[in-house]
């Protein structure tokens, strides 16, 4: 575990999380959530959990983003908050 990488990526994770819940456009929120998942995957790779990291990269950043985009296209794209 390299703590410099760890702190930088942890900050990026938190920034992506705050951005994903504060953007008003739901498609943008979905893509930001994908970026959040990918940053989380990098964090786990740094911490030595490589199996969890590639599962998160395929399932969290891949399939979840596709689910979100599909759901947003079937419903409305704008959000009030």
């Amino acid at each position, binding site marked *: *575990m390299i*703590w410099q990488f*760890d*702190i930088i990526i*942890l900050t990026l*994770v*938190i920034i992506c*999380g*705050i951005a*994903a*819940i504060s953007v008003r456009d*739901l498609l943008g*929120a*979905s893509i930001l*959530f994908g970026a*959040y*998942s990918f940053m*989380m995957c990098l*964090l*786990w790779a740094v*911490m*030595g*959990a*490589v*199996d*969890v990291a590639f*599962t*998160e990269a395929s*399932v*969290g950043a891949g*399939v*979840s983003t596709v*689910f*979100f985009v*599909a*759901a*947003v296209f*079937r*419903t*409305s794209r704008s*959000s*009030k*908050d």
Partner: protein
Amino acid sequence: MEELAAVFVARYNYWGVIILMGIGLYAMIAKTNMVKKIIGMNIFQTAIILFYISTAAKYGASIPIIAHGHGAQGHGIRAADYMNPLPHVLMLTAIVVSVATLGVALALAVRVYWNYDSLEEDEILNQIKAGQLNRK
């Protein structure tokens, strides 16, 4: 006092976990849009997974794969040289469960949108109240 501060600074990963859990809880409680609530639920789940992975990490340790393990004899393996693989395996299951809950939650949100033509919680509540008044 300085020792206490050192303990709090050294556990920065757990501070990240607490902040991410706060973000997820805030999104689940305060946001009215359903997709935002689902994103908050997922952030909360990944925060819990990050907590478990943090308990497994060690400074100066490598990934839990034994180098030259096959046919080696005579010298033992020091556990301090490898990360603890047990929380990794548990969290592998948690990731799969989280994507399953995400699929169910999004399917329910789409179904609600078909019925009420809105994803906002307050508008849906207003429509439900108006429907009850009409029936009476």
